[in-house]
């Protein structure tokens, strides 16, 4: 198997795909937003329960490919209990890693923690939208506008 494939479908990602964390509807959600990729049908709803400025709880439900599902699952574990601004900063960092120029190294990958497992997505341009989908939905939910985010009309990638 090619090393890029090994990197993309590593054990941690396959595990989150098979046993997604924080999966299901959040009973006391204060905000939620949908993320939809009309090209492949990936469709997730991200629920958040805010306590002031803190993401007290977060979950997601829906369906999609292994990359989008694992990314959503890992995102929920990463942002649960963080402040809104921290979550947004993490999204920026994550986005810059998965959309990076693959010929350049990555600085401070450690900041991403387990999310760093998705760094290999950058080798697969067609799959960057899969990895980013849940994050765009979270971003929308945190802004509380509840807008459905589509990978095809937000310029999201």
């Amino acid at each position, binding site marked *: 198997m090619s090393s*890029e494939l090994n990197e993309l*479908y590593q054990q941690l990602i396959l595990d989150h795909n098979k046993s997604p964390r924080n999966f299901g509807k959040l009973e006391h959600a204060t905000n939620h937003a949908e993320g939809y990729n009309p090209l492949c049908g990936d469709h997730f709803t991200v629920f958040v329960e805010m306590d002031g400025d803190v993401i007290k709880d977060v979950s997601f439900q829906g369906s999609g490919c292994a990359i989008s599902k694992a990314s959503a699952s890992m995102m929920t574990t990463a942002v649960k209990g963080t402040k809104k601004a921290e979550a947004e900063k993490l999204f920026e960092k994550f986005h810059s890693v998965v959309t990076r120029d693959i010929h350049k190294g990555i600085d401070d990958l450690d900041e991403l923690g387990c999310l760093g497992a998705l760094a290999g997505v950058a080798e697969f341009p067609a*799959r960057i939208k899969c990895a980013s989908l849940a994050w765009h939905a979270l971003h929308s939910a945190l802004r509380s506008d509840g807008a459905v985010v589509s990978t095809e009309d937000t310029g999201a990638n």
Partner: protein
Amino acid sequence: MKPSTEILTKEKGTGAETSFDVARVREDFPILAQKVHGKPLVYLDNAATSQKPQVVVDALTKYYASQNANIHRGVHALSELATYEYEKARGKVKLFLNASDSREIIFVRGTTEGINLVAQSYGRKFIKAGDEIIVSAMEHHSNIVPWQLLCEQTGAVLRVIPMNDSGELLMDEYKRLLNKNTKFVSVVYLSNSLGTINPVKEIIKYAHEAGAPVLIDGAQSTPHLAVDVQELDCDFYAFSGHKICGPTGIGVVYGKANLLEAMPPYQGGGDMISSVTFEKTTYNSLPYKFEAGTPNIADTIAMGAAIDYVHGLGLKNIASYEHELLAYATEKISAIEGVRIIGTAEKKSSVVSFVVGNIHAHDVGTIVDREGIAIRTGHHCTQPVMRRFGIPATARASFAFYNTMEEVDKLAGALLHVKEIFGS
């Protein structure tokens, strides 16, 4: 052009008899010799677009290097040559479809534009509020949306022929849908996402009994099945050049002359008029009435070269070889545990759509791509079909006459690899 019989050969003693010298044919396609991710390219996305033989690439180069001029207006030698070559291509399409007159061959950008032309020109004139238009449950979006637009504009209603779990149209339901309000029927000949070959001759017959004209979406059928528009008795037939080994951006809509005569122009501009004053413009005769502006001359001529090429191989030989490929691929792919083929109609051609357990089609596509195998993953512009089968997407291998049994083996091997990665 070699007569088709010259490429007929028999592989003896292998048990796998074939009447098609695929190794020879592959030499005509330079792109097939390349490697992708370090592996020989296995191109199984022919329903999206076919590859181009060298003769088509040469026709394009020759046109731009030695024949380029605008057509139908110059008296100079080059313009006359370009016009001659362009109209010669129309003659080739006429023979290819067995139309009764080359005036019935309208050049458009592709199947999509052909359907839109008919919906807007025929539809806006002859279809009114309360009229019914019938399409089928397995249409490509390009044979749904133009009719929905027409319905919005006119107040007509869209009716849909349902299908069974194998992906076959329910003909009894179709007959029930036909009534005095049915004013148009538009159906696909060969489904791009299921591979079903629809009984279009029967569909046309019943529609005519109800007094409705029929358009056949030939985007997928044209490169795989011999088509005779007079024998089918279809009123319109649309196809794309790029799916029959020709260039992108060129296609054809055939229409019966009496219908085309009665239809208003689709677009206005140069070439489609016979005289223009600010008070009144009279339109040109067929087919030019529907070809406003400078057309896609180069690609039309190259599509003519593609038709010559395909005709030289013989549509019957192509269909028979592709049938062997389909049978072998169906056997190999369905033998893999957990794989479910979507579209199991009795009459099928060249398409195997499938899901691998609960592994998403995009993951399947990414993994086999690294083996050099190009397949399509997604909804294939047929979202209603996906909904009908309760799946978000399929992986689709679609074959052409230059694919081989070995390539089918490689796909099957790659699918085992997908399952291995996902531990299923």
